[in-house]
């Protein structure tokens, strides 16, 4: 997925080529879905977020500046939409209860129980800290890329990431979560 290829696809989309936009969806739906799922901890919400993100991308495509990486611009929209979604969602404590009681259904996944515990642990972090963990650990983005997406300095990214890991360390120990 090169930046040049993305820029060409964007140009084709703006010329009216819908197939080009489908190619962009094929390329980026998985990482955006994973990001949304980590943030929302629920498949249905993650799908809503992803749909909204791509519709917004489509509508705002003529505002994209090819000087910057397309995926950075896309992730920015995805992060904002994830945060907006969180703000619209019901009370966090109630949601946590539902998550633990099993009322919220998840698709069968590898290490299903572990995933639920990780999602629960991530939810205990403040959104600003949660998002840097998700972008670094689940999207493999560098400090610089994360800083560009969140419009913060690299040092701030490191500070939040390292603090988040420190907190996660004690959360995971309390919940008895381990790799073994």
């Amino acid at each position, binding site marked *: 997925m090169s930046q040049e290829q993305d820029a060409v696809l964007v140009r084709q989309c703006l010329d009216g080529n819908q197939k080009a936009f489908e190619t962009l969806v094929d390329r980026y739906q998985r990482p955006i879905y994973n990001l949304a799922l980590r943030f929302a901890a629920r498949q249905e919400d993650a799908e809503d977020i992803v749909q909204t993100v791509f519709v917004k991308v489509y509508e705002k495509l003529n505002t994209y500046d090819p000087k910057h990486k397309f995926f950075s611009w896309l992730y920015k929209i995805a992060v904002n939409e994830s945060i907006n979604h969180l703000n619209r969602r019901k009370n966090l404590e109630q949601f946590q209860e539902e998550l633990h009681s099993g009322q919220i259904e998840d698709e069968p996944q*590898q290490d299903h129980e572990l995933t639920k515990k990780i999602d629960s642990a991530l939810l205990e972090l403040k959104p600003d800290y949660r998002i840097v963990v998700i972008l670094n650990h689940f999207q493999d983005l560098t400090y610089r890329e994360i800083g560009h997406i969140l419009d913060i300095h690299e040092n701030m990214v490191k500070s939040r*990431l390292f603090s988040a*890991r420190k907190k996660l360390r004690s959360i995971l120990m309390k919940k008895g979560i381990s790799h073994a």
Partner: protein
Amino acid sequence: MLEKKVLDLLNQELDGTNSEKERVAVQNILQKRPKARKYFEDLQEISLIFQRTKNVPVPSHLKNRILNALPFPKPAAPIRLAPARSFLNELRTNLRYRYTYVFASGAVAGILLFAVFTSQPADSTNMIGTMASGQPAALAEANANIKLSEITGTVTARRFDSKVVADLNLQVPQEVDVILNFDEQQLRFDSFHPVADAQGTLVILEGQVRLTVSGQHQYQMTFTGNQDSRPPITVKLFARGILLSEYKLTFEQKENH
């Protein structure tokens, strides 16, 4: 309690961003300080836990859900061409329109008679009606012949002083988008004239005109431009969002005899 500097080095080691000098320092710390070693092992544990649940497969229906939610075509409101017959039907059935039609016809006839008797020369920039009755020579012209498996036709663009006239003559068995792209700094879309009962949907954007057509039809579009410039016009044909063909109309000076 580990110092912030040590914690930073351990985190950066996990992320692989330490310099060579810092890596050596970390190895030293890990050898000499058990608490630092434990902290680093916990960081690695966190990373491994996340790795195990990293890539969740996308639900198979998600792509269709996204595509069905897209607002296609893009923003500007389309201009729909009403078939000429519906107006004629109105004349036959609606008395109010008949009186209006008679009055309007009389007014038009009067204006035409006035124009004839006062011998006003035809404006060389008014293209309507000049096609059949002897038109001024174009200063420059560009042509494209379309010969695809199911789509044939011609696109001709002619330059007259500050006007550009594009004539499209198309035969398409299915719905096709014809997109004209041009430099909006040098050309501005002016008017659109379907010939006879040609139908279609027109969308006008800055630097772009999109015409959706099917069947065999002729259309004429006029643009206004700077007198000295001859910007090219790109014509693209799309079917169901797939680019079929592209043509670049580059004006060539016509010789005046």
